């Protein structure tokens, strides 16, 4: 019964056993903050394995589920001690007309396991919905993904709506997806081109520090 064992269970994606052990460790008096720090390192390691494809998407998703089980148990204890650090709030979705969401789902998982709060809007999301949801959750980021060249213009549409509403500077606008590029980000005036999922936490954190 140890933090090392907890870490291994999360890495193996054993959600039920993670839940049981987390509760046991709490009873044993282990500091919840120390547990969260350990699990954050575990997920960073799992993320590195996935980035190299030493493990695959189903495995990292199971690890994410196991982590969620632990975090749900620890959350009330962390709140009492000031809460888990939230690095930023993100509205995330795939633009209107686009039904491809595997990349968006990976970004969501990586961000959440690295301390971001993510509101997942799903796919085929209207541009105005991105903006309204960002307003509603007081987000820091509006992040949109597009897998098709003919749906990329919707990323520009999000920025144009923000400008029309006079709130462009309230949010960092992030774009991503296979056909997107830094060139496209520059052309439409996005704040950040997120070129892959594993870099997302670092890129998001850096750009927020510039705010």
């Amino acid at each position: 019964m140890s933090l090392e064992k907890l870490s291994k269970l999360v890495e193996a994606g054993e959600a039920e056993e993670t839940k049981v052990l987390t509760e046991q460790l709490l009873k044993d008096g282990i500091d919840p903050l120390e547990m969260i720090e350990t699990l954050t390192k575990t997920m960073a390691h799992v993320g590195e394995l996935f980035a190299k494809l030493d493990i695959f998407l189903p495995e990292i998703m199971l690890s994410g589920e196991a982590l969620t089980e632990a975090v749900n148990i620890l959350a009330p204890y962390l709140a009492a001690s000031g809460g888990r650090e939230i690095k930023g709030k993100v509205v995330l979705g795939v633009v209107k007309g686009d039904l491809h969401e595997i990349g968006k789902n990976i970004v969501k998982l990586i961000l959440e396991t690295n301390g971001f709060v993510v509101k997942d809007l799903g796919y085929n999301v209207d541009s105005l919905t991105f903006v309204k949801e960002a307003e509603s959750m007081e987000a820091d980021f509006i992040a949109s993904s597009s897998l098709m060249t003919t749906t990329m213009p919707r990323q520009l549409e999000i920025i144009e709506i923000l400008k029309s509403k006079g709130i462009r500077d309230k949010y960092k606008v992030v774009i991503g997806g296979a056909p997107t590029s830094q060139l496209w980000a520059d052309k439409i005036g996005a704040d950040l081109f997120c070129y892959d999922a594993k870099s997302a936490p670092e890129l998001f954190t850096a750009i927020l520090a510039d705010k």
Partner: protein
Amino acid sequence: MSTLYRHWEIIDRARTGKFMEEEDFLPKHFSPTLKKLIKKYEIKYDPKNPSPTDDAMADRIWQAAWDLFREVGYYNTDSHRIIEVTDEEIKEALYMASDQYVVGGGKDARVMRHRSVEDPEPPFCIMSPDITVDEKYHQSMCMAYLKEPLLDGLCGPILEETFGHLIESGGPTEISGCIQHIQNQKMAARLLGRPDTFMVAVGTAEHDSGQIAVSNDEWGVQKTDARLVGSLTEFKTADTLLNRSLHYAQYGCYTGNLTGAIYGGWCGGSEGTAITTVAYSLIGLVIHGAMFNQHFPFHLNYVSNTTRELLWPISMAGQALSRNSNLLYTSNGFANAGPMTEMLFREVAVHAMVSTVSSWHLWEMASTRNKYRNRATPLEARLGCEVGHAVARQKMSREQANEIANKLLAKYEDHAADAPMGSEYHECYDTAKAVPTVEHMDMFRRVKDEIAQMGVEFPY
């Protein structure tokens, strides 16, 4: 014949099938079933052999793919229900599927036949850049592809703009762009003197309305042409996709089923990618009534399929399909490197060689990870198709293909992550005349000579 006679029953299941929340379908249904089948059928990836020769494993992959389709079904994201099929329906569809079709028209008509493993008949060669291109180069690029001698079919470049307007999926600009796309393609074919060349069109259409707008036997996509219907990753569809296959059947053109199982994604590794690719051919036949299946399994990080972890599933999937069905299927190459680089020429050569000896027809070649505008040319497709013709005619064995593939892989494999982007179309082609530059041709000949010295007997 097509299996569209069951289409209404299939569509009905998209409304009445088993309910499941979409977020559960892949992690709780698809992936665990696939994992179980990999274990049950003892499927094991062999990294030393990108062109494997294990016939028994090919047959087990076929059985695993059959079970995967039957046990998992096909999820409709609009109705949140699973379209399920029976063994009897799969058997019936396979019995009814034709092993050959005549496509294109008049003197340009071609026959696309089922191929066997190590088949001496050359593959059917569809050429496509698979990428977007500047509006000003679109017709030139169509013409450049149609100048390729070995081209049996053309899937033209994709437009991003139409008369200066950004094309937006589902909007009026898409309909306009789709009409411009097919007319450029048809005009190029007429000017070249190959007016009835088989075409797969139009890639500019992301939405069903764009496809439906170009169905016209006089000026648009003809009934002798084909259209594609895709899947959502993995094993998912939507009404906008079902609309397509129904429309194609009702219009009367051929249907191709477009799928790319993702290595590293929900399929897991090479084993799952091979099984899923084969299962997609069954889905194409039974769900969409497809005449052929157009597969492009690809690497989650690189968005390519010319490294060994993708060559193995491509080869095994082809062998599984060939040994157990009479279906038609094209292998769509995705390269890491860009045009006018030696790496790209080597990548397309390996992809075409491994695919051809494993029974595939060819669809060459998406360059530069299928990502960058203007970064694809007909010359890499030419080399791929010349390799395909060569290895078929010389009756190359899988063992020999394996040996050559390993030699070529040694030259580029370590650069998959940092592959050179090469040049854009207008930098390595004379766009007015639609011919490659001297420098580009010199590189083509140099790499072709290198491959010939390894044992590929080019006919010219």
